[in-house]
């Protein structure tokens, strides 16, 4: 157990150091990020009201290991894609 724990902690520190050293390139194209990541599982573009989309993209940032920059780019893209004031619309896959 102790060996495994130390292995996990050491791995995490290494990853953290790498992350601090290099942030993702900016700016990101939200549509591109969506097509490359989200559309792997989701068939259609979601059109939720803005605050719902903000929460949903936070959830997906964790699940799909998106960077925060990617999450924000996707959120921006989704907000722009909602062409009309959206009622609470049910989701698509």
């Amino acid at each position, binding site marked *: *157990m102790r060996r*495994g*724990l130390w*292995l*996990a*902690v050491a*791995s*995490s520190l290494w*990853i*953290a150091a*790498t*992350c*601090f050293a*290099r*942030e*993702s*390139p900016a700016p990101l194209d939200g549509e*591109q990020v969506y097509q*490359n990541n989200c559309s*792997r*599982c*989701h*068939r*259609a573009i979601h059109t*939720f*009201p*803005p*605050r*719902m989309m*903000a*929460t*949903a993209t*936070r*959830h997906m*940032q*964790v*699940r*799909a*290991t*998106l*960077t*925060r*920059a*990617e999450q924000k780019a996707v959120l921006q893209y989704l907000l722009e894609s909602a062409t009309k*004031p959206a009622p*609470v*619309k*049910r*989701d*698509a*896959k």
Partner: protein
Amino acid sequence: MKALALLVTAASLLFCADTVPSEVPLITGDFGFLAGLQSGHREFGPKFEPIVLLPLSGRLLVEAEYSTELPVERNNGSLGPAVLNHSVEYMQLDYAATNSITVVAGYFATPFGIYKERIDPLWIRNFIDTPLLYAVNDNSSAGVMIRGGLFATPAVKLNYAVSVSGDVENSQFQASKKTTERLSVYLPGARVELGSSFSRNLGAGPYNTYGFDLTYRPKQAPLEIRGEGLWSGVLGNGYWMEGTYRFPSARLGFLRRSQAVLRGESFSPAESAADLVDGLPDGNSKRISLGWNYWIKDAVRASIAYERLWSRAEDTNVLSLALVYRFSLPVGRAQ
């Protein structure tokens, strides 16, 4: 272990700077009615998987999923029994520490392979039946996880997840003492992701499990290929490979809202596997599945699939049907 979990959680709360939530709490998830038909045996019933998302700040998010189902069996004309299965899938606190690091504490899906974390929701999976080897990965961890993604170059992204779990055993939460890691390389330009997973179970009779996964989605065609493989001297070896094809340019509206799916898989359990993991095939098994998914509405999907299973016990044909509804409701002002 507990001290580390407490430390990470405390640090998360301490350094949580931006406290203006622009998000609204959500209750989302899916509800489905599933049926499996084979000679002399039928199984059908509802399944309900609500997810609660509670943003506490710009960096903190609580998320939880509860899964409940009531499968009813009908064997050779007699009905029952019907047993309500229910459990917590995850109940976790996420702290987005930096652009590339999220610290997760609590009870979370074990980051091994791609099925459990990404494909498992009824609304997302291509086939209602999970792969044969999924019983190995269908578990959660109780402890701490660090995960995220970072760009090594603009064309190469690295995804990682490292977790440490302790033993938990009660009616709603089950986790074993283990460490798990997943690392993957994603090439956005080619839309290819290659991943590897490693888990070391630290309970009685420590053992390792190795996994690999692949996702490929060419830009030239509405095609997606994905699969997983795993190897464990104690649990067994297996793989599944799945392909989907959509028809976005079809003239028929029915086709434009449809998806054809095909899966091939194999699993060979080790002798001791049944003592350690429930739900694995009891002998060498191979299965091929062919299915069709149709979106009646954006939030309603109908699925049909035919499966042919070759196993040590018997060869069977299964027809599975499903109707799944996806919902998402704000708790508060959504605009």
